[in-house]
């Protein structure tokens, strides 16, 4: 799980050694696996959501394990449902860095919804791929900025 031919969350996210070391120091018996998401991660995540919405693929990276006691398809169904509620213009705006929009631009709200959905999608996918608790560091960038 966690990857398809074109969308491999473990390749898109970079291991975050600094935060991993800090976690090891602060909670040696209860560590997370830390990753950094650069601005470059957003576009492939949006593209992946659109690929699923267009019916080219199933959101297999969001399918969990039966062992969790939760319907393994719950997250895939929920996030796909959420994705369908957004407009094409929202996804198009999400492909453009926030700095390209003037404050007050009506497209900002839809863009923010798409960026937040992409974060939720990627977070769920990487949690499933790792199979345990994760830490996510979103780098300072205009791509992820709402």
């Amino acid at each position, binding site marked *: 799980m966690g990857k398809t031919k074109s969308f491999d969350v473990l390749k898109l996210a970079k291991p975050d050694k600094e935060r991993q070391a800090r976690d090891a120091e602060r909670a040696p018996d209860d560590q997370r696996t830390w990753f950094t998401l650069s601005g470059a991660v957003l576009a492939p995540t949006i593209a992946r959501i659109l690929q699923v919405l267009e019916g080219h693929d199933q959101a297999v990276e969001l399918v969990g394990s039966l062992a969790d006691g939760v*319907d393994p398809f719950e*997250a895939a169904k929920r996030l796909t449902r959420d994705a369908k509620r957004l407009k094409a213009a929202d996804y198009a705006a999400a492909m453009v860095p926030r700095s390209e929009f003037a404050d007050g631009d009506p497209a900002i709200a839809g863009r923010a919804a798409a960026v937040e959905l992409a974060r939720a999608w990627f977070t769920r996918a990487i949690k499933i791929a790792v199979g345990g608790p*994760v830490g996510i560091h979103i780098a300072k960038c205009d791509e992820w*900025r709402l």
Partner: protein
Amino acid sequence: MAGWTNRGKRNVLDERYRATTLPTNYYVALCRSTTSPTADINTLSELTQISTSTGYTDGGIQLTKNSTDFDVLTEDDANDRALIQIKDLVWTASGGNLDSGAGARWAVFTDHNATVGSREVEHYWDLSSDRNVSDGQTLTLQDCEIRINES
């Protein structure tokens, strides 16, 4: 609408900067729409939980203070905030509808107190509509997030 109660904000600051005793556990309870949580809510007794005889335990699901139950921690430098996510929470209706009334409208995060009604409400999430499930069906909450923003 999701949010922090002012009691929750105070507790976090008090625990962090005065080293007061942390709750042994936390809980996520389900509440009806009878009273909507606001920042001013203090205890669970101010809200109305769903009924407890068909799959819902008084006080809700217990959370342990570890990375299993708080399974995603995010440090967001793009938006100057931090977020923590709670593991997936599942209630299964058994012997009837999960709630004898209209269902759960709110998920509510509380601290621990042996007296359930005295548990302090720290965060809440709007489930958008009354949620109820029939015998044998499940109600699942995913990606409940607690956020700290700069503004």
